C-alpha cells in the first residue's frame, strides 16, 4: 500500500512536472508565402509512374501547397510528356495480369531551362539528405539524383543554396525517403544511409536554412516506416499463385509453395509468409525463377526455363531485412523530430498518412488504399504517388502548417479530380493535361539513369 502511494505521488509529480515543463510550441517564422521554396526528392518533384513530366508536376506536393496558399509564380523544372523517363501507363486491364508499358521509348525534354532564377521547387528525384547540401548540378550523371540535378540545379548551387538565394519567406522540406527507399527498392538493407551520416546531413541542412533565412517559416515531414504501405512490395506473393484461379498453388500436403531465394549472403532457402517479393521480380518468376526444383518436371512448370533457379537477394525482403529497414527509418524519424524541435519547426506526419492509406481510407465516394493499380494512391511504378496521392501528401503539410502557424490555408480537395471538375491553377485557369508526345534521341540516355532498378515491362508476361 505504501509502495502504491509512493508510486502515485511520484507519478503525480512527474505529470505535474511534465505539464509545467512542456513548452508551448511556437513555430519559427511565419506562414508567409510571398517567397515559397521547396526542398525534396522525387516525391517533391512530382515523379509519377517512373516519370517526371508536366502532366503530373502540377500535382507535386509543393505545387499543391503553393496553389492552395495562393502563390502566384511557383516555378518548377517542367518536362514535356512522356517525361523523364517515359511515363508508365496502364494499357490492358481486360486480361490478367494487367499490362503496364512505358509511353514510348524516348524521353521528354525540360521546357523551362532558361528560367532566369532558381526554381521554387528544387526537389531532385533520387536525392537523399546528403545530396541536398552537396549536389549543385555540375556533377557527372552517375546517379539518378545527379542526372536530374543537372537540369534542376543547373550549376547554380545546392538545393539549400538556391532556396536561400530566393530570400524565402517559407520553406517546405521533405527529404530522407531515399535514405531508406534505395535499400527497399534494391531488396537489401545494405544501401541504408548510416544513421550518423543521416543525422549529420539533416542537421547541417537545417542549420544552413535557419542561418540563411532566420525569419522564414519552415515545415518538415517524417518518413513512412511501413514497407507494407508500398505496392512495390506487396503486389507479388511469396508463393505460387495459379493465374487462372488466382488462388495459391498447393503442394501434396495442401501447403502453399513458397519461392526459393537467396536469403542473404548466398544462403538459399524458401521464403516464408512474411517475406516480400519486389514488384519487378514478377517477371522473373514468370520465367520460373524462385519455383522449387522439385517442380521442374511437373507440367506446366516444365515449360519454364528457369525453374529451380533462386530469386536473387535483391528480389526479396526477408522478415529480418524488413526489421532492419523499419528500425533505421524509426531512427531517422527520431533524428527528424529532434532536429525540428530544436529549431521550432513543425513536422508533418507523412508516416501517419502512409499508415492510414495502408489500412484504407474513404474520402468522399472514393476508397483509397495501397493496392497496386486500384488503390489510387500509388502510381504504376509501385512507390511513387499518383496525383491524388500527392494531394493527400500536400494536405498533411497544409494541416501541419495551419496547426503550427494558426493559418487557414484550405486543404486541396479530392473533388478536384472529378472528371468534369478539372483542377484549377491559382489563377483560375483549368489545368489541362498535356498529352503531346515529344521524341528526343538525346533524352533516351537519361531515361536509363532515372531508376535503374525498375524493369520497364512490369506486366508479368
Amino acid at each position, binding site marked *: 500500500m505504501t509502495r502504491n502511494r509512493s508510486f502515485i505521488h511520484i507519478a503525480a509529480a512527474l505529470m505535474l512536472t511534465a505539464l509545467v515543463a512542456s513548452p508551448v510550441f511556437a513555430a519559427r517564422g511565419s506562414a508567409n508565402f510571398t517567397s515559397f521554396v521547396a526542398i525534396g526528392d522525387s516525391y517533391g518533384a512530382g515523379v509519377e509512374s517512373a516519370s517526371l513530366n508536366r502532366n503530373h508536376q502540377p500535382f507535386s506536393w509543393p505545387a499543391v501547397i503553393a496553389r492552395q496558399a495562393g502563390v502566384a509564380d511557383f516555378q518548377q523544372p517542367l518536362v514535356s510528356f512522356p517525361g523523364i523517363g517515359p511515363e508508365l501507363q496502364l494499357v490492358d486491364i481486360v486480361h490478367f495480369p494487367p499490362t503496364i508499358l512505358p509511353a514510348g521509348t524516348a524521353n521528354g525534354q525540360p521546357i523551362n531551362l532558361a528560367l532566369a532564377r532558381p526554381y521554387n521547387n528544387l526537389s531532385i528525384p533520387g536525392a537523399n539528405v546528403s545530396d541536398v547540401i552537396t549536389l549543385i548540378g555540375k556533377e557527372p550523371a552517375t546517379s539518378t539524383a545527379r542526372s536530374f540535378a543537372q537540369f534542376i540545379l543547373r550549376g547554380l548551387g545546392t538545393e539549400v543554396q538556391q532556396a536561400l538565394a530566393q530570400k524565402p519567406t517559407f520553406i517546405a522540406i521533405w527529404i530522407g525517403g531515399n535514405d531508406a527507399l534505395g535499400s527497399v527498392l534494391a531488396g537489401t538493407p545494405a544501401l541504408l544511409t548510416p544513421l550518423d551520416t543521416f543525422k549529420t546531413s539533416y542537421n547541417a541542412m537545417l542549420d544552413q536554412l535557419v542561418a540563411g533565412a532566420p525569419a522564414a517559416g519552415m515545415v518538415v515531414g517524417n518518413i513512412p516506416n511501413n514497407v507494407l504501405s508500398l505496392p512495390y512490395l506487396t503486389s507479388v506473393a511469396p508463393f505460387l499463385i495459379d493465374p487462372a484461379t488466382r488462388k495459391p498453388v498447393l503442394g501434396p500436403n495442401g501447403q502453399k509453395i513458397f519461392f526459393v531465394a537467396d536469403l542473404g549472403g548466398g544462403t538459399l532457402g524458401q521464403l516464408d509468409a512474411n517475406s516480400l517479393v519486389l514488384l519487378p521480380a514478377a517477371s522473373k518468376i*514468370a520465367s520460373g525463377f524462385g519455383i522449387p526444383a522439385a517442380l521442374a518436371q511437373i507440367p506446366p512448370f516444365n515449360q519454364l526455363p528457369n525453374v529451380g533457379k533462386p530469386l536473387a537477394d535483391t528480389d526479396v525482403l526477408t522478415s529480418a531485412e524488413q526489421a532492419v529497414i523499419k528500425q533505421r527509418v524509426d531512427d531517422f524519424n527520431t533524428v527528424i523530430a529532434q532536429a525540428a524541435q530544436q529549431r521550432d519547426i513543425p513536422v508533418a506526419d507523412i508516416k501517419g498518412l502512409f499508415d492510414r492509406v495502408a489500412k484504407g481510407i474513404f474520402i468522399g465516394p472514393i476508397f483509397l488504399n495501397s493496392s497496386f493499380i486500384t488503390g489510387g494512391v500509388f502510381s504504376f511504378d509501385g512507390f511513387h504517388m499518383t496525383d491524388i496521392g500527392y494531394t493527400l501528401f500536400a494536405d498533411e503539410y497544409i494541416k501541419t502548417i495551419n496547426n503550427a502557424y494558426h493559418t487557414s490555408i484550405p486543404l*486541396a480537395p479530392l*473533388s478536384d479530380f472529378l472528371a468534369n471538375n478539372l483542377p484549377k491553377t491559382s489563377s483560375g485557369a483549368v489545368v489541362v493535361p498535356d498529352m503531346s508526345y515529344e521524341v528526343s534521341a538525346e533524352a533516351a540516355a537519361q531515361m536509363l539513369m532515372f531508376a535503374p532498378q525498375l524493369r520497364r515491362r512490369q506486366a508479368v508476361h
Partner: protein
Amino acid sequence: MRVIRNTFRLVIPVAIFMTTTAAFASGFALFEAGAKAVAMGGAFAATADDPSAIFYNVAGLAQQRRTAVMFGGTAINFQNNFAGDRNDLFTAGTSGSKYRAHTFVVPNAYAVVPFGGNLTFGVGVFAPFGLRTNWEQPWVGRYISSDANIKTVSFEPALAWQTSDGRFAIGGGPEYRRAKVVLNRNTLARNPFNGRITDVANTYLASDWSHKWGWNVGLLVKPTPTWRIGLSYRAPMTVDFKGTATITQIPSGNAQFDAVVASQLPSTQPVTTSIAMSDFAYLGIATSAVGKWDIEADIVRNSWSRFKTLSINLVNTPALSPPTRVSNWKNTFSYRLGGNRPVTPDWDVRLGALYDKNPQPTFDISPILADSDRVGVSFGVGYKRGPWVLDATEFALHFKKRGSNGQSQDNFNGTYKTDANLITVNLGYRF
C-alpha cells in the same frame, strides 16, 4: 507462368450504392394548405374558419355554415448554397453549388357542405409532405444525390359537428394518401487509366404511386365569445413503396474501363422501400380581444422520431442493396403566431411568424436533405366580393445555416444555407 498476388486483380469499386442511400426525407412536412392559414404563420388550429380547416383542424368545418369551394396552391422557390468544409479532404474549397432554379407548386382544393344546423361535410385535397432537392450540375455531391423528390397528395372526406351554441365542435375523417419518391444519383469510380474520379453510372430510383389510409380528428372549443382553443391530430403513417431502379452506364471513353464497370453493374430491377411520415399534433389558442385583431398562437408537434432508418432493397440482387441508413430523427415542435385584421368590410390584412425546429441529427445532414431550424414571417391579404373570396400570401422562410461539422455519414461535409420564398393564393366561392 504468371505469378502475382490476388491484390493485383482489378476490382474497381462501382457499387451503385457506395454510400448510404436515400434519406428521401427529413423534416419534409408541409404546412402550406391554405393562403389565410399561411398568412397567419400556420397558426390556424383555433381559427379554422375557411375550408382549409380540413387540414389544420377539421372541427373548424362545423362553424362554416355555407356551402363553399376553395382551391389554390403555394409556389415555392429556394435560394441555397453549399460550401465545402475546409477540413474535408473531398469538399474543401467547394462553393457556389445550389439547387436548379425552379418553382415547386403545392396545390390544395376543398369543398364544404353544411347539413342541418350542426353538421358539416367537407372534402379536401392537399399535400401534407413533400421534398425536392434538385442540384445544379456539375454537382460535387452527385454521388449522394442529384435529385431527391418526394410527393404526396391526400384526399380526405371529413365530417364535423358542433353544438347549437357553437361553443364546442368536433370533427374527423379518414385520409387517403398517395405518395411517390424519386432519387437520382451518379456512381463514381476512379479510372485507373487516367487517375480521375469518373461518373460511371446513373441510378434513377423511382417508385410507383403508393397509397395508405390514415385518419384525422379535431376539437374546437370557444369558452368565451373572444377566446378559442383548437386541438387537432393527424395520424402518422409509414408508406411502403415499390418501384424501379434504372441503372444506366455512363461511358468513360475508355473501352476497357467501361467493360470492367459494365461487368460489375447490377441490372435495372424492381426496388422496394418504406418511408415513415410523422403525425401532426396542433394546439392553438386564439383571441379576438386585442383591438380589431384576431390573434392566434399555436404549437405543433411532429413525431419525426419514427424516422429511424431507411432501407432500399434491390429485389433481384438483394446482396447489392445498400446498408440500412440510420437517421434517428428527433420529435420536433414548431411555434406559430398569426393575426388577422379586417381593414374594410372587403379587405383583411394578415401577419404571421414561426420558428420551426428541425428533426435531423448532424450526422444525417446530406445533399438529399440538409434540414435546419427555420424562422419565417408572412404577410397576406384577404378580399371578399359577393360570393368570391381571394386570399394571397407572401411568406419568407429562412433556414439557419447548417453544417455537418465533420460528422457526415456520407463522407461529405460542408455547410448548407437555404432561404425560401413562398407565395400562396386561394380562390373561394361561397354559395
